[in-house]
Protein backbone atom coordinates (compact mmCIF):
# COMPACT_ATOMS: atom_id res chain seq x y z
CA UNK A 1 0.00 0.00 0.00
CA UNK A 2 1.38 3.39 -0.95
CA UNK A 3 0.87 6.54 1.04
CA UNK A 4 -1.21 9.39 -0.20
CA UNK A 5 0.34 12.74 -0.96
CA UNK A 6 -0.67 14.12 2.43
CA UNK A 7 0.63 11.05 4.25
CA UNK A 8 3.94 11.22 2.39
CA UNK A 9 4.27 14.85 3.37
CA UNK A 10 3.46 14.06 7.00
CA UNK A 11 6.03 11.29 7.02
CA UNK A 12 8.66 13.54 5.53
CA UNK A 13 8.01 16.30 8.04
CA UNK A 14 8.08 13.87 10.96
CA UNK A 15 11.38 12.43 9.74
CA UNK A 16 12.84 15.86 9.24
CA UNK A 17 13.39 15.20 5.57
CA UNK A 18 10.83 17.66 4.16
CA UNK A 19 11.86 20.67 2.18
CA UNK A 20 10.41 24.11 2.80
CA UNK A 21 8.06 23.67 -0.13
CA UNK A 22 6.83 20.37 1.21
CA UNK A 23 6.20 21.90 4.65
CA UNK A 24 4.20 24.70 3.11
CA UNK A 25 2.15 22.26 1.11
CA UNK A 26 1.42 20.21 4.24
CA UNK A 27 0.39 23.34 6.14
CA UNK A 28 -2.05 24.17 3.37
CA UNK A 29 -3.55 20.68 3.49
CA UNK A 30 -3.81 20.65 7.26
CA UNK A 31 -5.58 23.98 7.30
CA UNK A 32 -8.37 22.61 5.17
CA UNK A 33 -8.68 19.18 6.77
CA UNK A 34 -9.28 18.93 10.51
CA UNK A 35 -9.06 15.13 10.61
CA UNK A 36 -5.74 15.18 8.82
CA UNK A 37 -4.55 17.89 11.18
CA UNK A 38 -5.49 15.76 14.21
CA UNK A 39 -3.70 12.76 12.76
CA UNK A 40 -0.57 14.78 12.15
CA UNK A 41 -0.55 16.21 15.66
CA UNK A 42 -1.05 12.79 17.19
CA UNK A 43 1.80 11.27 15.17
CA UNK A 44 4.11 14.15 15.88
CA UNK A 45 3.39 13.80 19.57
CA UNK A 46 4.15 10.08 19.46
CA UNK A 47 7.38 10.57 17.54
CA UNK A 48 8.54 13.22 20.00
CA UNK A 49 8.02 10.88 22.91
CA UNK A 50 9.70 7.97 21.15
CA UNK A 51 12.72 10.15 20.50
CA UNK A 52 12.72 11.40 24.08
CA UNK A 53 12.71 7.91 25.54
CA UNK A 54 16.18 7.17 26.91
CA UNK A 55 18.30 4.19 25.99
CA UNK A 56 18.37 1.12 28.19
CA UNK A 57 21.73 0.17 29.62
CA UNK A 58 22.88 -3.35 28.74
CA UNK A 59 23.67 -5.50 31.74
CA UNK A 60 27.22 -5.20 32.98
CA UNK A 61 29.47 -7.94 31.68
CA UNK A 62 27.57 -8.50 28.46
CA UNK A 63 30.61 -7.81 26.30
CA UNK A 64 32.88 -9.99 28.41
CA UNK A 65 30.35 -12.78 28.34
CA UNK A 66 30.10 -12.69 24.55
CA UNK A 67 33.85 -12.57 24.14
CA UNK A 68 34.38 -15.47 26.52
CA UNK A 69 31.96 -17.65 24.62
CA UNK A 70 32.96 -16.85 21.10
CA UNK A 71 35.52 -18.94 19.30
CA UNK A 72 36.59 -17.20 16.17
CA UNK A 73 38.25 -19.76 13.96
CA UNK A 74 38.02 -23.53 13.85
CA UNK A 75 35.59 -23.91 16.70
CA UNK A 76 32.86 -21.46 15.86
CA UNK A 77 30.35 -24.29 15.76
CA UNK A 78 30.96 -25.05 19.40
CA UNK A 79 30.37 -21.42 20.28
CA UNK A 80 27.05 -21.39 18.48
CA UNK A 81 25.94 -24.60 20.12
CA UNK A 82 26.69 -23.05 23.45
CA UNK A 83 24.62 -20.02 22.63
CA UNK A 84 21.62 -22.12 21.71
CA UNK A 85 21.75 -24.28 24.80
CA UNK A 86 19.46 -21.87 26.59
CA UNK A 87 21.95 -21.19 29.35
CA UNK A 88 22.65 -17.56 29.96
CA UNK A 89 26.07 -16.49 31.02
CA UNK A 90 25.22 -12.87 31.56
CA UNK A 91 22.48 -12.26 34.04
CA UNK A 92 20.81 -9.16 35.34
CA UNK A 93 19.63 -8.87 38.89
CA UNK A 94 16.15 -9.72 37.72
CA UNK A 95 17.29 -12.86 36.00
CA UNK A 96 19.28 -13.95 39.03
CA UNK A 97 16.27 -13.44 41.22
CA UNK A 98 14.10 -15.35 38.80
CA UNK A 99 16.56 -18.19 38.55
CA UNK A 100 16.79 -18.62 42.31
CA UNK A 101 13.10 -19.33 42.30
CA UNK A 102 13.72 -22.43 40.23
CA UNK A 103 13.62 -25.51 42.36
CA UNK A 104 16.53 -27.76 43.14
CA UNK A 105 14.61 -30.43 41.32
CA UNK A 106 14.83 -28.65 37.97
CA UNK A 107 18.53 -28.16 38.46
CA UNK A 108 19.09 -31.78 39.33
CA UNK A 109 17.20 -33.01 36.30
CA UNK A 110 19.12 -30.62 34.10
CA UNK A 111 22.40 -31.80 35.57
CA UNK A 112 21.54 -35.42 35.01
CA UNK A 113 20.54 -34.68 31.46
CA UNK A 114 23.79 -32.89 30.86
CA UNK A 115 25.72 -35.87 32.16
CA UNK A 116 23.65 -38.41 30.33
CA UNK A 117 23.58 -36.69 26.96
CA UNK A 118 27.21 -35.66 26.78
CA UNK A 119 28.44 -37.85 23.98
CA UNK A 120 31.99 -36.60 24.19
CA UNK A 121 32.55 -38.26 27.52
CA UNK A 122 34.10 -41.67 26.98
CA UNK A 123 33.38 -44.67 29.14
CA UNK A 124 30.20 -45.99 30.62
CA UNK A 125 28.01 -42.98 29.99
CA UNK A 126 28.93 -43.04 26.36
CA UNK A 127 27.50 -46.49 25.85
CA UNK A 128 23.89 -47.25 25.02
CA UNK A 129 23.47 -49.06 28.31
CA UNK A 130 24.89 -46.13 30.18
CA UNK A 131 22.55 -43.71 28.45
CA UNK A 132 19.63 -45.98 29.20
CA UNK A 133 20.50 -46.15 32.86
CA UNK A 134 21.00 -42.43 33.11
CA UNK A 135 17.69 -41.80 31.35
CA UNK A 136 15.98 -44.18 33.73
CA UNK A 137 17.57 -42.37 36.63
CA UNK A 138 16.34 -39.05 35.33
CA UNK A 139 12.86 -40.47 34.99
CA UNK A 140 12.96 -41.85 38.52
CA UNK A 141 14.13 -38.53 39.92
CA UNK A 142 11.43 -36.77 37.93
CA UNK A 143 8.76 -39.06 39.35
CA UNK A 144 10.10 -38.61 42.85
CA UNK A 145 10.11 -34.89 42.42
CA UNK A 146 6.60 -34.89 41.03
CA UNK A 147 5.39 -36.98 43.92
CA UNK A 148 6.74 -34.44 46.37
CA UNK A 149 5.05 -31.65 44.49
CA UNK A 150 1.62 -33.14 43.89
CA UNK A 151 1.57 -35.50 46.92
CA UNK A 152 0.78 -38.67 45.05
CA UNK A 153 0.08 -41.28 46.27
CA UNK A 154 -1.75 -39.38 48.97
CA UNK A 155 -0.52 -39.67 52.50
CA UNK A 156 -2.71 -40.29 55.46
CA UNK A 157 -2.82 -36.65 56.42
CA UNK A 158 -4.57 -35.23 53.41
CA UNK A 159 -7.09 -37.85 52.44
CA UNK A 160 -9.98 -37.20 54.74
CA UNK A 161 -13.13 -36.86 52.74
CA UNK A 162 -11.34 -37.00 49.42
CA UNK A 163 -10.31 -40.41 48.18
CA UNK A 164 -10.98 -42.87 50.94
CA UNK A 165 -14.72 -43.25 51.60
CA UNK A 166 -15.90 -42.19 54.98
CA UNK A 167 -16.24 -44.99 57.52
CA UNK A 168 -19.77 -45.37 58.75
CA UNK A 169 -20.53 -45.76 62.37
CA UNK A 170 -21.84 -49.20 63.14
CA UNK A 171 -23.11 -50.18 66.50
CA UNK A 172 -22.39 -53.71 67.75
CA UNK A 173 -24.89 -56.07 66.19
CA UNK A 174 -26.91 -58.72 67.98
CA UNK A 175 -25.69 -62.25 67.54
CA UNK A 176 -27.71 -65.42 67.62
CA UNK A 177 -26.87 -65.79 71.25
CA UNK A 178 -28.04 -62.32 72.02
CA UNK A 179 -31.48 -62.76 70.47
CA UNK A 180 -33.63 -65.49 71.89
CA UNK A 181 -37.18 -65.45 70.65
CA UNK A 182 -38.94 -67.30 73.28
CA UNK A 183 -42.54 -68.05 73.87
CA UNK A 184 -44.78 -65.10 74.61
CA UNK A 185 -45.47 -66.39 78.03
CA UNK A 186 -41.98 -67.43 78.82
CA UNK A 187 -39.73 -65.69 81.15
CA UNK A 188 -37.05 -65.49 78.44
CA UNK A 189 -37.60 -62.52 76.21
CA UNK A 190 -35.61 -61.09 73.41
CA UNK A 191 -34.13 -57.71 73.42
CA UNK A 192 -36.64 -56.58 70.80
CA UNK A 193 -39.41 -58.09 72.75
CA UNK A 194 -38.39 -56.25 75.79
CA UNK A 195 -38.33 -52.99 73.95
CA UNK A 196 -41.67 -53.70 72.38
CA UNK A 197 -43.07 -54.40 75.73
CA UNK A 198 -41.71 -51.17 77.02
CA UNK A 199 -42.62 -48.91 74.20
CA UNK A 200 -45.72 -50.05 72.48
CA UNK A 201 -47.18 -53.20 73.72
CA UNK A 202 -50.09 -51.59 75.38
CA UNK A 203 -51.95 -52.99 72.44
CA UNK A 204 -54.24 -55.75 71.66
CA UNK A 205 -52.92 -58.22 74.13
CA UNK A 206 -53.28 -55.77 76.86
CA UNK A 207 -49.70 -56.63 77.68
CA UNK A 208 -48.68 -53.49 79.38
CA UNK A 209 -47.05 -55.42 82.06
CA UNK A 210 -45.55 -53.68 84.92
CA UNK A 211 -42.39 -55.27 86.11
CA UNK A 212 -41.70 -56.50 82.57
CA UNK A 213 -38.08 -55.50 82.06
CA UNK A 214 -35.27 -55.82 84.47
CA UNK A 215 -32.73 -53.12 85.06
CA UNK A 216 -30.12 -55.28 83.34
CA UNK A 217 -31.98 -55.27 80.06
CA UNK A 218 -32.52 -51.58 79.73
CA UNK A 219 -30.22 -49.43 81.68
CA UNK A 220 -31.66 -46.90 84.03
CA UNK A 221 -30.63 -44.16 81.71
CA UNK A 222 -32.67 -45.66 78.91
CA UNK A 223 -36.03 -46.33 80.40
CA UNK A 224 -37.65 -44.67 83.25
CA UNK A 225 -38.63 -46.58 86.33
CA UNK A 226 -42.23 -45.95 85.52
CA UNK A 227 -42.01 -48.07 82.43
CA UNK A 228 -39.70 -50.83 83.49
CA UNK A 229 -39.76 -52.59 86.71
CA UNK A 230 -37.04 -54.86 87.94
CA UNK A 231 -38.95 -58.04 88.40
CA UNK A 232 -40.12 -59.69 85.19
CA UNK A 233 -37.18 -60.50 82.96
CA UNK A 234 -34.18 -62.10 84.44
CA UNK A 235 -30.72 -60.75 83.93
CA UNK A 236 -29.82 -63.71 81.71
CA UNK A 237 -32.51 -63.14 79.16
CA UNK A 238 -30.81 -60.40 77.21
CA UNK A 239 -27.14 -59.73 76.87
CA UNK A 240 -26.45 -56.26 78.18
CA UNK A 241 -24.01 -55.71 75.35
CA UNK A 242 -26.69 -56.15 72.76
CA UNK A 243 -28.50 -53.01 73.77
CA UNK A 244 -26.37 -50.03 73.08
CA UNK A 245 -27.21 -46.62 74.37
CA UNK A 246 -27.58 -45.50 70.77
CA UNK A 247 -30.43 -47.89 70.18
CA UNK A 248 -32.71 -46.71 72.89
CA UNK A 249 -32.26 -43.22 74.02
CA UNK A 250 -33.86 -41.77 77.04
CA UNK A 251 -35.89 -39.57 74.77
CA UNK A 252 -37.43 -42.57 73.11
CA UNK A 253 -39.08 -44.00 76.14
CA UNK A 254 -40.54 -41.49 78.44
CA UNK A 255 -42.94 -41.95 81.25
CA UNK A 256 -45.49 -40.10 79.21
CA UNK A 257 -45.52 -42.71 76.49
CA UNK A 258 -47.62 -45.21 78.31
CA UNK A 259 -50.37 -43.42 79.99
CA UNK A 260 -53.67 -44.69 81.23
CA UNK A 261 -55.30 -42.82 78.40
CA UNK A 262 -53.54 -44.95 75.80
CA UNK A 263 -55.49 -48.01 76.68
CA UNK A 264 -58.91 -47.25 75.43
CA UNK A 265 -61.82 -49.55 75.84
CA UNK A 266 -62.00 -49.99 72.10
CA UNK A 267 -58.61 -51.60 71.98
CA UNK A 268 -59.70 -54.59 73.95
CA UNK A 269 -62.39 -56.36 72.07
CA UNK A 270 -64.19 -59.34 73.41
CA UNK A 271 -62.73 -61.51 70.72
CA UNK A 272 -59.18 -60.60 71.47
CA UNK A 273 -59.32 -61.33 75.10
CA UNK A 274 -59.79 -64.94 75.82
CA UNK A 275 -59.98 -66.34 79.22
CA UNK A 276 -56.65 -68.01 78.68
CA UNK A 277 -54.88 -64.83 77.77
CA UNK A 278 -55.76 -62.83 80.74
CA UNK A 279 -54.94 -64.57 83.88
CA UNK A 280 -55.93 -63.28 87.19
CA UNK A 281 -52.33 -62.54 87.91
CA UNK A 282 -51.90 -60.34 84.88
CA UNK A 283 -54.69 -57.95 85.50
CA UNK A 284 -54.38 -56.26 88.74
CA UNK A 285 -57.04 -54.14 90.22
CA UNK A 286 -54.88 -51.12 89.70
CA UNK A 287 -54.72 -51.43 85.91
CA UNK A 288 -58.26 -50.52 85.07
CA UNK A 289 -59.68 -47.69 86.90
CA UNK A 290 -63.33 -47.10 87.27
CA UNK A 291 -63.07 -44.12 84.98
CA UNK A 292 -61.79 -46.18 82.07
CA UNK A 293 -64.79 -48.39 81.70
CA UNK A 294 -67.93 -46.51 81.09
CA UNK A 295 -71.32 -48.03 80.99
CA UNK A 296 -71.43 -47.45 77.25
CA UNK A 297 -68.30 -49.46 76.54
CA UNK A 298 -69.49 -52.85 77.46
CA UNK A 299 -72.72 -53.90 75.96
CA UNK A 300 -74.56 -56.95 77.08
CA UNK A 301 -73.70 -58.58 73.81
CA UNK A 302 -70.01 -58.08 74.21
CA UNK A 303 -69.53 -59.59 77.53
CA UNK A 304 -70.91 -63.00 77.80
CA UNK A 305 -70.92 -64.88 80.97
CA UNK A 306 -68.42 -67.27 79.49
CA UNK A 307 -65.84 -64.66 78.70
CA UNK A 308 -65.20 -63.23 82.00
CA UNK A 309 -65.05 -65.54 84.81
CA UNK A 310 -65.70 -64.43 88.25
CA UNK A 311 -62.08 -64.91 89.00
CA UNK A 312 -60.90 -62.59 86.28
CA UNK A 313 -62.75 -59.51 87.16
CA UNK A 314 -62.50 -58.44 90.62
CA UNK A 315 -65.19 -56.52 92.33
CA UNK A 316 -63.04 -53.46 92.12
CA UNK A 317 -62.76 -53.56 88.34
CA UNK A 318 -66.26 -52.51 87.50
CA UNK A 319 -67.81 -49.91 89.57
CA UNK A 320 -71.31 -50.24 90.77
CA UNK A 321 -72.28 -47.42 88.43
CA UNK A 322 -71.00 -49.28 85.44
CA UNK A 323 -72.82 -52.37 86.36
CA UNK A 324 -75.93 -50.36 86.70
CA UNK A 325 -75.47 -49.01 83.22
CA UNK A 326 -75.17 -52.45 81.79
CA UNK A 327 -78.23 -53.43 83.38
CA UNK A 328 -80.08 -50.44 82.13
CA UNK A 329 -79.06 -51.28 78.53
Amino acid at each position, binding site marked *: *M*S*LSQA*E*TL*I*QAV*LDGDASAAERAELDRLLASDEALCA*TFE*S*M*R*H*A*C*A*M*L*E*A*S*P*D*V*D*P*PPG*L*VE*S*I*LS*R*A*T*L*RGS*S*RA*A*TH*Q*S*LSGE*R*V*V*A*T*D*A*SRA*RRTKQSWFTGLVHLLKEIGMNEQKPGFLGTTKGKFLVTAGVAAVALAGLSTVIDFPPGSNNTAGTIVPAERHRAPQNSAQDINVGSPSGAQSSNAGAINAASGAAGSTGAVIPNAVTPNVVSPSVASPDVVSPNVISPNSVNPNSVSPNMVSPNMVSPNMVSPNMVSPNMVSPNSVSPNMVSPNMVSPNMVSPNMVSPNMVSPNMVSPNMVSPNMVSPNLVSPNAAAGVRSN
Partner: protein
Amino acid sequence: METDDDQALVDGCRNGDRAAFATLVTRYQRPIYNAAYRVLGNADDASEVAQAVFLRNVERLDDYDSQYRLFSWIYRIAINEAIDLLRRNRREEPLDEGIELADIDGAGPEDRYRDRQLSDRIQRALMSMKVEDRVVLTLRHFSGLSYKDIAVVLHAEEKTVKSRLFEARQRMGELLADLRIR
Protein backbone atom coordinates in the same frame (compact mmCIF):
# COMPACT_ATOMS: atom_id res chain seq x y z
CA MET B 1 27.28 4.64 13.94
CA GLU B 2 30.78 3.91 12.78
CA THR B 3 30.71 2.02 9.53
CA ASP B 4 33.85 3.05 7.73
CA ASP B 5 36.04 0.45 9.29
CA ASP B 6 33.33 -2.19 9.76
CA GLN B 7 34.67 -4.10 6.78
CA ALA B 8 38.12 -4.07 8.35
CA LEU B 9 36.64 -5.49 11.54
CA VAL B 10 34.91 -8.21 9.58
CA ASP B 11 38.13 -9.07 7.83
CA GLY B 12 39.90 -9.18 11.17
CA CYS B 13 37.31 -11.50 12.64
CA ARG B 14 37.59 -13.76 9.63
CA ASN B 15 41.31 -13.98 10.30
CA GLY B 16 40.78 -14.90 13.92
CA ASP B 17 41.58 -11.46 15.34
CA ARG B 18 39.95 -11.39 18.73
CA ALA B 19 40.66 -7.69 19.18
CA ALA B 20 38.67 -6.94 16.04
CA PHE B 21 35.83 -9.06 17.31
CA ALA B 22 35.97 -7.30 20.69
CA THR B 23 35.76 -3.93 18.95
CA LEU B 24 32.80 -5.07 16.91
CA VAL B 25 30.97 -6.38 19.97
CA THR B 26 31.70 -3.25 21.97
CA ARG B 27 30.46 -1.07 19.14
CA TYR B 28 27.16 -2.81 18.50
CA GLN B 29 26.19 -4.50 21.74
CA ARG B 30 24.36 -1.48 23.08
CA PRO B 31 22.13 -0.73 20.04
CA ILE B 32 21.50 -4.42 19.52
CA TYR B 33 20.57 -4.88 23.16
CA ASN B 34 18.26 -1.84 23.05
CA ALA B 35 16.57 -2.98 19.86
CA ALA B 36 16.05 -6.44 21.30
CA TYR B 37 14.67 -4.98 24.53
CA ARG B 38 12.17 -2.79 22.69
CA VAL B 39 10.95 -5.73 20.65
CA LEU B 40 10.89 -8.24 23.50
CA GLY B 41 10.11 -6.05 26.50
CA ASN B 42 12.31 -8.15 28.76
CA ALA B 43 15.89 -7.46 29.83
CA ASP B 44 16.90 -11.09 30.16
CA ASP B 45 15.53 -11.99 26.76
CA ALA B 46 17.28 -8.99 25.27
CA SER B 47 20.55 -10.09 26.81
CA GLU B 48 20.08 -13.59 25.48
CA VAL B 49 19.37 -12.28 22.00
CA ALA B 50 22.36 -9.95 22.08
CA GLN B 51 24.68 -12.82 22.92
CA ALA B 52 23.16 -15.06 20.30
CA VAL B 53 23.53 -12.32 17.68
CA PHE B 54 27.27 -11.98 18.09
CA LEU B 55 27.93 -15.66 18.41
CA ARG B 56 25.90 -16.28 15.28
CA ASN B 57 27.71 -13.39 13.69
CA VAL B 58 30.97 -15.23 14.24
CA GLU B 59 29.55 -18.40 12.83
CA ARG B 60 28.21 -16.78 9.67
CA LEU B 61 30.97 -14.34 8.89
CA ASP B 62 31.68 -16.17 5.68
CA ASP B 63 28.08 -15.54 4.58
CA TYR B 64 28.30 -11.80 5.08
CA ASP B 65 27.81 -9.87 1.81
CA SER B 66 29.98 -6.80 1.94
CA GLN B 67 27.70 -4.86 -0.40
CA TYR B 68 25.44 -4.32 2.63
CA ARG B 69 26.49 -2.41 5.67
CA LEU B 70 27.53 -4.51 8.59
CA PHE B 71 25.06 -3.08 11.07
CA SER B 72 22.16 -3.87 8.70
CA TRP B 73 23.32 -7.46 8.67
CA ILE B 74 23.68 -7.55 12.44
CA TYR B 75 20.26 -6.00 12.96
CA ARG B 76 18.70 -8.56 10.68
CA ILE B 77 20.15 -11.33 12.81
CA ALA B 78 18.97 -9.55 15.94
CA ILE B 79 15.39 -9.07 14.71
CA ASN B 80 15.18 -12.68 13.54
CA GLU B 81 16.52 -13.93 16.87
CA ALA B 82 14.05 -11.76 18.76
CA ILE B 83 11.09 -12.91 16.70
CA ASP B 84 12.19 -16.52 17.11
CA LEU B 85 12.37 -16.04 20.84
CA LEU B 86 8.90 -14.50 20.88
CA ARG B 87 7.56 -17.47 18.98
CA ARG B 88 9.29 -19.93 21.26
CA ASN B 89 8.13 -18.29 24.44
CA ARG B 90 4.65 -17.20 23.36
CA ARG B 91 4.19 -15.54 26.69
CA GLU B 92 2.83 -12.31 28.00
CA GLU B 93 5.06 -11.16 30.79
CA PRO B 94 4.60 -8.06 32.86
CA LEU B 95 6.85 -5.20 31.93
CA ASP B 96 10.41 -5.77 33.07
CA GLU B 97 11.16 -3.18 35.73
CA GLY B 98 14.70 -4.42 36.28
CA ILE B 99 16.16 -2.40 33.41
CA GLU B 100 18.65 0.41 33.90
CA LEU B 101 18.13 3.56 31.88
CA ALA B 102 21.10 5.32 30.39
CA ASP B 103 22.46 8.17 32.51
CA ILE B 104 21.92 11.65 31.17
CA ASP B 105 24.41 14.27 32.24
CA GLY B 106 22.97 16.63 34.81
CA ALA B 107 19.81 14.62 35.32
CA GLY B 108 18.50 14.75 38.87
CA PRO B 109 16.30 12.25 40.66
CA GLU B 110 13.17 13.87 39.32
CA ASP B 111 14.45 13.70 35.75
CA ARG B 112 15.41 10.09 36.17
CA TYR B 113 12.02 9.26 37.63
CA ARG B 114 10.30 11.02 34.73
CA ASP B 115 12.49 9.21 32.22
CA ARG B 116 11.65 5.93 33.84
CA GLN B 117 7.93 6.66 33.70
CA LEU B 118 8.15 7.66 30.06
CA SER B 119 10.23 4.63 29.10
CA ASP B 120 7.84 2.26 30.84
CA ARG B 121 4.82 3.92 29.28
CA ILE B 122 6.26 3.71 25.81
CA GLN B 123 7.34 0.14 26.30
CA ARG B 124 3.84 -0.83 27.38
CA ALA B 125 2.46 0.82 24.29
CA LEU B 126 4.98 -1.00 22.13
CA MET B 127 4.17 -4.35 23.66
CA SER B 128 0.48 -3.84 22.93
CA MET B 129 1.19 -3.44 19.24
CA LYS B 130 1.72 -6.01 16.52
CA VAL B 131 5.28 -7.34 16.29
CA GLU B 132 5.71 -5.89 12.79
CA ASP B 133 4.73 -2.41 13.99
CA ARG B 134 6.93 -2.78 17.05
CA VAL B 135 9.91 -3.79 14.93
CA VAL B 136 9.60 -0.97 12.43
CA LEU B 137 9.16 1.64 15.17
CA THR B 138 12.17 0.25 17.01
CA LEU B 139 14.43 0.27 13.99
CA ARG B 140 13.38 3.75 13.04
CA HIS B 141 13.16 5.55 16.37
CA PHE B 142 15.43 3.62 18.75
CA SER B 143 18.03 2.32 16.32
CA GLY B 144 17.90 5.33 14.02
CA LEU B 145 18.00 3.34 10.78
CA SER B 146 16.99 4.90 7.49
CA TYR B 147 14.12 3.58 5.42
CA LYS B 148 16.61 1.97 3.12
CA ASP B 149 18.42 0.19 5.96
CA ILE B 150 15.15 -0.91 7.50
CA ALA B 151 14.14 -2.33 4.13
CA VAL B 152 17.38 -4.30 4.04
CA VAL B 153 16.93 -5.57 7.56
CA LEU B 154 13.35 -6.60 6.96
CA HIS B 155 13.82 -7.85 3.43
CA ALA B 156 11.06 -5.50 2.29
CA GLU B 157 10.57 -2.72 -0.20
CA GLU B 158 11.19 0.80 0.99
CA LYS B 159 7.67 1.97 0.22
CA THR B 160 6.35 -0.92 2.27
CA VAL B 161 8.50 0.21 5.16
CA LYS B 162 7.17 3.76 4.86
CA SER B 163 3.59 2.61 4.79
CA ARG B 164 4.08 0.28 7.76
CA LEU B 165 5.85 2.97 9.72
CA PHE B 166 3.09 5.48 9.01
CA GLU B 167 0.49 3.10 10.40
CA ALA B 168 2.65 2.26 13.38
CA ARG B 169 3.13 5.92 14.21
CA GLN B 170 -0.61 6.51 13.94
CA ARG B 171 -1.24 3.64 16.31
CA MET B 172 1.39 4.84 18.73
CA GLY B 173 -0.14 8.32 18.65
CA GLU B 174 -3.47 6.85 19.72
CA LEU B 175 -1.85 4.83 22.50
CA LEU B 176 0.08 7.78 23.89
CA ALA B 177 -2.65 10.37 23.46
CA ASP B 178 -2.92 10.88 27.21
CA LEU B 179 0.75 11.69 27.61
CA ARG B 180 2.20 15.13 27.31
CA ILE B 181 5.87 15.57 26.83
CA ARG B 182 7.72 17.95 29.12
